[in-house]
């Protein structure tokens, strides 16, 4: 025993001596651990999404999907339309004064509609729904986890992924494209208010440019992006809430708070990353 203790002391001394030399090693080990954990999380999230997606088509889902579509979609529509209106109005202002310099005010309708349909519509809609419904998803599922309600579902023979996650994923996939369409429409109206009503551009020119410059490909692109964002946001938010009890940085109520923050931050980042990836495929 004494020998072991002596050996232990010796090791500690040895560790003290070589500590400075270990800094690069520690750095790489931290990076390595983080990388492995991140890849593991992505893998887990992929399996999680797969299970949730497959379970959408199981029996007794229509009612829950309808409820969630109402909550995620219908109840988010007002805030999405409000943001769309002001986004369109700001675009109208900015683009009007830029195009005036080149004598191309007639292209205002094209510029507003293309930027909304291709980029701003899907991205801003996704970010707004993440802020409103995604955070709620993560918090609600996190509380269900911490109060053992998810375990209770399991013990009652109810698959928690089928009952809790699949309806939210399905509702997001349904709601995101619809709300994006609303965003685009209201945004174009917002551009009309500033460009035509306030700044005096010709109304006929504005709508002619809107109609002639948007192709079906642009609408399809925006629709695909909205679908992808819907899947990503719902998966990330539900995943963060569902596994909040396994967080190493907080327990109980704190873990729910941290899960909600992570859900919103990761979702927003992933919306922009996936936007680039999808756009590069579409272009």
């Amino acid at each position, binding site marked *: 025993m004494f020998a072991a203790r002596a050996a232990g002391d010796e090791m500690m001394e040895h560790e003290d001596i070589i500590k400075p030399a270990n800094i690069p090693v520690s750095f790489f080990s931290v990076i390595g651990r983080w990388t492995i954990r991140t890849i593991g999380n992505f893998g887990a999230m992929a399996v999680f999404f797969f299970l949730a997606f497959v379970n959408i088509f199981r029996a007794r889902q229509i009612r829950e999907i309808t409820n969630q579509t109402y909550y995620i979609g219908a109840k988010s529509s007002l805030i999405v339309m409000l943001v769309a209106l002001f986004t369109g109005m700001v675009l109208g202002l900015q683009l009007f004064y830029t195009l005036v310099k080149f004598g191309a005010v007639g292209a205002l309708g094209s510029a507003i509609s293309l930027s909304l349909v291709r980029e701003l519509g899907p991205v801003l809609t996704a970010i707004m729904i993440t802020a409103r419904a995604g955070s709620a998803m993560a918090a609600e599922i996190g509380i269900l986890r911490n109060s*053992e*309600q998810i*375990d209770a579902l399991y*013990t009652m*023979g*109810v698959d928690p992924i089928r*009952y809790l996650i699949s309806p939210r994923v399905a509702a997001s996939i349904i709601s995101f494209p619809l709300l994006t369409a609303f965003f685009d429409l209201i945004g174009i109206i917002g551009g009309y208010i500033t460009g035509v009503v306030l700044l005096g551009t010709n109304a006929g020119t504005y709508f002619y440019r809107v109609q002639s410059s948007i192709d079906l490909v642009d609408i399809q692109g925006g629709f695909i992006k909205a679908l992808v964002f819907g899947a990503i946001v719902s998966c990330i938010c539900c995943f963060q809430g569902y596994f909040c009890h396994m967080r190493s940085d907080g327990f109980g109520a704190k873990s729910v708070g941290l899960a909600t923050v992570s859900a919103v931050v990761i979702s927003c980042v992933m919306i922009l990353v996936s936007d680039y990836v999808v756009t590069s495929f579409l272009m």
Partner: protein
Amino acid sequence: MNAPLIEFRNVTKRFNGKTVLDNVNLSIYENQVTTIIGKSGTGKSVLLKHIIGLLKPDEGTILFQGTPIDKMKKAEWEGHRRKIAYLFQNNALLDSMTVLDNVAFPLRQTTDLPKAEIEKRAMKRIEDLELLEAVGKFPSELSGGMQKRVALARALVTDPKIVLFDEPTTGQDPIRKNMILSMIIHYRKKYGFTAVMISHDIPDVFFISDRVIILWEGGVGFEGRYEEALKQNVPMIDEFLRSLDGFQDQLTGLLSREAFKMHYSAMLGSTVSESTSSAALFGVRLDILHEALGAQAALEVLRALGEYTNRYFNAIGGFSARHSRDEILTIFPRKTIEEARKLVEDYSRNLEHGVIDHIRDMASANSGEATCFDIHIHAGVTEIYPEDRIDEIIEKGRAKQEIISTYRCDFGGKDQ
């Protein structure tokens, strides 16, 4: 004994490097009530969660009807799992649903029963657990005790074959505690399920348990009947059991069994030369009371009998304790058997006002005039010899028991 229904073989579970279950071996048998006791943090809930598959062992195997769970196909295990219900320590009610929706939820999600039938079954359980006034309320609007009963109703609504109770009586008053235990016995008799229960409600939990498992320092300290546990003479386990027992039976106000034993030993010490003490074993059939009056009223009657017995005999130096759910043993120090018989006779005459009136009130409130039943109170008087053990006195008293008072269903002259 039959083959175990559930068996733990060398099960070890660790959380963050801390071993909670260490090489646990135990068996749970079909149609029995197995109670798990142990100090806080000894892994009782963890053990229960392993049974239903919420946790998986780090080492070792759990066998279900002789087949290792980890070797079962998913569908086979799911089939078994659906027969198991779990009552969580913190209830785990779905807080965004009303009481009715909570109780009906497992049926709505896992069966194809018509809506009306689901509602009917849910309402039956709600009624059984005296929750009718809470049907439309949300869990947050209920007291802790009511939440526990809602959780119990939800656990029993699917008529499970195995029910795991994680501290089902925590936070309840003595009547409700015993009512829940009565419900467990009642439903077990009715539906024949196997119960595994974590509870510290001594003595009642032991009155209804067929086997007791004591978790001690990560392992199984004892497995068997409660009476055997008391004879183990493992100092730390003895001390733990004694600490749970306390000095008073919460339901009746009588002495705890441990305190009774101490009184009895003290009496024997002081009356060595005299050998003139006597005892009486009083009893009322709790199962008949339950059938006739309902769970809560039956326990009210038992409490009234206990309180009355305690008050009556304390005055003359007697001391009493419950030795099963519905049997009370009273010792009369320095009383001959004739004196004891006389005391019991007087006692039975006064029972009319002490207890029978109580039953009459309960009967008129609960059953209505149409219900007809007889309820007898028994007593067996016996003498005590210095070498008699308490269980021997109980046996002698049981052999001599006769009816001393009766509540009759004719709503006229009731007592004998």
